[in-house]
């Protein structure tokens, strides 16, 4: 009897010791990256979709499009030789974090991954992505515009297949414009500022918003003004040219700082509840964004209540009539170097979201702005009357010309770092503690120092 109690006590003690150790392990935070759990390889387990042809080999895919389930089902129904096993590993940053960890640890990446254009260079440099030219990428080259193809290429190599683009335009509130007597939307940034002054003088709402969490917009405007922040070619992986202190960068940042200082635009971060509710309530007269904006905003509840049909699209104002079109966002499918069967993976990357049913589903729900020419040239797409824009043919009037005029952009291999630093400086500009010129020179020196620390030879 007594021995029994001792055993029981010992058992209890042992259990509590394990529990305590577990707790301790859970509590500590000091460790390094080894704590990051990448999980087991996602391959062929826990597919979030149904496999139609069970005998066919499977390819794992990470993607987060809102309609991805439909897209995957379409692909699997159409292909007997290969099936997609899809997982949603997070939208944007969370997915990149997992992929980053998988590259570092050498395992755990999917075969095919959805990536935004701006992320490609960094992962290419880390040898995370496969050049798709030997796997037939050029067969689908004709489906895309020159600019869209340039964004996924490095010289003659191609590292991803484009799906969706982000040609930029200006969305405005017809009711606010009418109330304050703006008959034609501003076509230049000078006019934009003049109209903003006019609305403010009449006691109107903010004319727009300069958010610190969208350095992509400021970068796009810099490109529009003729700036080339980064010049990078994977053929010479150690050389990079950084020009963030150029006249174009200073001009754009000074212009935005001026709008903020005169309180013509707000400084609310975008995609926050506060911002979206402000947009619905008519707190902002314009929204500078990309073609995928309406889909996102509709999802967040914009254009469904009293503001229904009040939005319209206009071409993005420019600094100069000869300015090129600019892009914000855009996504692709790439094959990872950890893919088990690269030929099959490439077939998936080239074929997913490329069939008519999926593309139609994507653009009619406005979740993507398709880059596939078969859609861009189809009359259904061109002449579509957007409900969000009150029946305006926004594709024809704004977004298709913008996409046709897009020439591509050189992203750096350290986009995340660049955006994080830019955001810090934009916050200071919005707080009025930093001028545009100073921000440009600080950004330049921060990025040059970082690039050198990473082993790049920097030319300025």
């Amino acid at each position, binding site marked *: 009897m007594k021995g029994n109690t001792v055993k029981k006590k010992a058992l209890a*003690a042992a259990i509590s010791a394990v529990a305590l150790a577990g707790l301790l392990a859970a509590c500590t935070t000091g460790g390094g990256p080894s704590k990051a759990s990448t999980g087991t390889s996602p391959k062929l387990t826990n597919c979030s979709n149904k496999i139609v042809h069970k005998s066919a080999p499977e390819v794992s895919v990470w993607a987060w499009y809102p309609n991805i389930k439909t897209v995957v089902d379409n692909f699997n129904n159409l292909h007997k030789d290969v099936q997609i096993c899809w997982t949603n590993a997070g939208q944007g940053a969370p997915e990149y974090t997992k992929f980053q960890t998988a590259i570092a640890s050498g395992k755990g990446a999917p075969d095919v991954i959805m990536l935004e254009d701006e992320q490609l260079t960094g992962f290419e440099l880390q040898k995370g992505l496969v050049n798709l030219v030997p796997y037939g990428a050029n067969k689908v080259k004709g489906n895309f515009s020159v600019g869209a193809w340039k964004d996924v290429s490095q010289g003659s190599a191609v590292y991803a297949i484009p799906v969706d683009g982000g040609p930029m335009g200006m969305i405005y509130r017809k009711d606010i414009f009418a109330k304050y007597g703006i008959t034609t939307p501003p076509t230049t940034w000078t006019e934009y500022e003049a109209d903003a002054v006019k609305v403010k003088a009449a006691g109107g709402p903010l004319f727009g918003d300069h958010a610190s969490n969208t350095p992509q917009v400021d970068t796009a405007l810099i490109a529009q003004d003729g700036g080339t922040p980064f010049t990078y070619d994977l053929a010479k992986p150690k050389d990079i040219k950084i020009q963030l202190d150029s006249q174009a960068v200073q001009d754009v940042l000074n212009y935005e700082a001026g709008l903020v200082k005169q309180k013509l635009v707000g400084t609310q*971060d975008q995609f926050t509840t506060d911002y979206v509710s402000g947009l619905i309530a008519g707190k902002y007269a314009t929204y500078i964004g990309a073609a995928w904006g309406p889909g996102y905003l509709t999802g967040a509840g914009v254009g469904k209540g009293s503001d229904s049909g009040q939005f319209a699209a206009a071409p993005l104002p420019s600094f100069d009539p000869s300015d090129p079109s600019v892009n914000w966002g855009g996504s692709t499918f790439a094959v990872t170097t950890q893919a088990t069967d690269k030929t099959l993976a490439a077939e998936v990357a080239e074929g997913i979201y490329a069939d008519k049913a999926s593309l139609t589903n994507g653009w009619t729900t406005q979740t993507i702005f398709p880059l596939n020419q078969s859609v861009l040239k189809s009359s259904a797409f061109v002449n579509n009357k957007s409900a969000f824009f009150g029946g305006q043919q926004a594709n024809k009037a704004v977004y298709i010309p913008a996409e046709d005029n897009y020439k591509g952009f050189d992203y750096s291999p350290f986009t995340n770092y660049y955006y994080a630093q830019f955001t810090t400086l934009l916050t200071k500009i919005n707080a009025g503690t930093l001028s545009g010129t100073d921000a440009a020179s600080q950004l330049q020196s921060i990025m040059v120092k970082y690039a050198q620390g990473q082993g790049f030879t920097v030319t300025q």
Partner: protein
Amino acid sequence: MADTATALGTHPASVTLGLPHRGRRRLNRRSRVGWLFVAPFAIVFLVFLVAPLVYAFYLSLFTKGLATGTTFAGIDNYIKAFTDTSFLNGVWFVFRFSIVLIPIQMLVSLAAALVLDALTTRFARFARLMIFLPYAVPVVIGALMWGFLYSPSFGPLSQIFGLFGAQAPFLLSPSNVFGGLIIVVTWQWAGYYMIIIYAALRGIDPTLYEAARIDGANAWQVAVRIKVPMVSSALILILVFALIGTLQFFVEPSILTPVANGSITSDFTPNIYAFNLAFQYAQFNYASTISFALGIVVFIAVYIFLFATRKRGSFLS
């Protein structure tokens, strides 16, 4: 754990006295059994704490640039860390934060514990639960909730200020974010510390109070002269907890980042900086270095603190 010690302790003591020969064998067996008892903890400890730490330290001695391969760096990374303005500003921020936060937290939790200790009504039990409740709310949920409370368009602040026709301050703006986070963290943790102090107060022998009252001490004097000194070791325990926790500040600011309009930067605290280095910028080596550098800072801070309070604090000695 204490149970194990007593359960084992009784047998062998008698054995060693009587039978030296068999005793040694028993002693060996005893130490083997001892190891067996330690094993569950030791294995978890080694696998989940020591091994990752060793690996992280190993990583921190190398450097890997995006354009270069991995090279041995020795202590170069540490030199870089301690001259890195992002890291130093982060450390400076968490130190300032600790200096303001810890006294506030301790005063709030001590006051609450003393009041609850003095009350014996049913209300006291209810109040104790309510004060403890924020700690039971997961930190992430708590931080999200505060994000809404601070919201310039939905928050109660904007409505209160709106009554007077004034514009509510945005408590997460670059100049207010310090105070805004102090409120969140105090709310989150004061209840937990209150329970620790309260438990210590319950452990005091009530005859001391009677003696004090006979000597003519009033309630205030009993609280300040008897109760507070009697729970000083609990207070020091709290201080060390709070100091370590604050120096490793991570969850609240990272949850509030999306609603803070850029006030919470990617190098806001050393832990946020280390996280971003590793998972946003692919610099696992340097992130390990920053983690270790923070560990060194925390160790030094806690050591200095324990040294300074060595006469009163007894829980670690």
